[in-house]
Every structure is written in C-alpha cells, then in structure tokens.
C-alpha cells in the first residue's frame, strides 16, 4: 500500500511530518524512535492498513486508527491514520502522558482527536492534499 502524509492547506504543513521533525531527543534516541515508527507504519501497510492489535488500534467514535510508540518513561506518541482506497493517510500525531488526571489535560487530548477528525473530513473532501511518505 502507498503511504502518504495528510497535508493541511490552511496550516501549510503535514501535521505528522511536522511533529516528527519537532521531536526533541538526542540524535541517537530520535533515530531509534523514527526507525521504530517507520517499522510500525510499514507493519500496518503490509496488513493493508487494517487495525492490527497490538501495533495499531481502532478508536471509539472515530474513523481513524492509532499507532503507539513510547517516547520516554511517561509519554507515548500516538500517530493517527486511516485507509483511503489503497492508501494509508497519516493524519496527525501527538504525545499523550501515561497518567493524566485534570480536566484540562483530558480536554487537550480530546482536542487532538477532534482536530484529527477535521483533517480526516478535509482529506475526504480533497484527497489531493497529501505528500508522499518516502
């Protein structure tokens, strides 16, 4: 399957690509993390983009799936994607702490999913908004 990054024409960025660039880790740790994320994305691709637990999981109330990778002891990176025809579209990525308790934190995380849902709808309306995953 082909893999692409969703491109947002208002923000003028690919949110996943932008996130991957912005990860703050030492060179070696970032290299390891990117290798792991790349392998997980490819694992999903060879399984035709279907959610394949435990590597990718479906989400309640949304039409996209998530791939999880641990950034550090307390933080997991979530990469949200969906399958469009024969293409895996990487929609958004964000960091989620293992333990969060406040309503503010909960709302911030929920907002990521809602934003991703907007990206999903925008891509469906304009499937040319993408960049190739190389």
């Amino acid at each position, binding site marked *: 399957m082909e893999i692409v990054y969703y491109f947002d024409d208002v923000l003028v960025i690919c949110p996943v690509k932008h996130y991957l660039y912005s990860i703050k880790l030492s060179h070696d740790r970032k290299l390891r993390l990117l290798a792991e994320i790349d392998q997980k994305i*490819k694992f999903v691709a*060879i399984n035709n983009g279907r959610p394949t637990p435990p590597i990718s999981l479906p989400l309640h109330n949304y039409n996209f799936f998530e791939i999880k990778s641990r950034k550090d002891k307390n933080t997991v990176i979530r990469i949200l994607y969906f399958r469009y025809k024969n293409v895996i579209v990487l929609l958004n990525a964000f960091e989620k702490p293992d333990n969060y308790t406040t309503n503010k934190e909960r709302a911030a995380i929920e907002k990521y999913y809602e934003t991703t849902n907007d990206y999903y709808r925008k891509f469906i309306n304009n499937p040319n908004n993408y960049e190739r995953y*190389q």
Partner: protein
Amino acid sequence: MKDINKKISTDPIAEARKDKKFLAYSEEAAARIRLGVEIYQARLAHNLSQQALAAATKTTQKMISNLESGNVDIRNSTLIKIKTVLGFGAENWARIYNFSLPIKNNMTRA
C-alpha cells in the same frame, strides 16, 4: 493520486534513513514488533489478560503492554518466563526470527 505539494521540506524519516545506524535500529524494531505480536496472539490464545500474564511472569501489566506494543527490549529472564507460560514453540520463534530484516512495504504508486 498526484503529489501536488512540492515545497515542503524533506521527510524526516527519509532523512533518518540516510544515517548508517538506521538499518540496524530498524531491524531491532522489526524484531520487537514481531515478538510483541506473537506474545499478544499467544496471550489471547491462552485467554489471559495482560494483568494475569504479568502476575504469572512476575512483571507488571505496563511491561507486558510495552512488550506487546514493541516499545521496549525484553530481558532474557523475562522472555524465558513468558515463553514458558505461553508455551512458545518452534513455530513462534520462526515467525519472530526467521525474518530478521526490517519490514518492507511494497509501495505501489497510483
């Protein structure tokens, strides 16, 4: 589909791929992913929760979750306990280690 966005900078994963360590790290990640999937499927086949497997192997549920997600390297002693509880056989190890190369996606261009 046509790639219409030419002005965006290079793919960070494509950049990382140029580093000579990337292939080795990809191989390690691929082995962790395959091991995680194997543990997950064997655990379900044994009708065990992550909590139950953690108790049986004297580790934590969080560790089992991380192992299944391919996020962490497993200690040999933990692996021995897990394979005993889940009854790993030759076919399990074959699926994990007979494919030591990184996972490749046969990308097709539309």
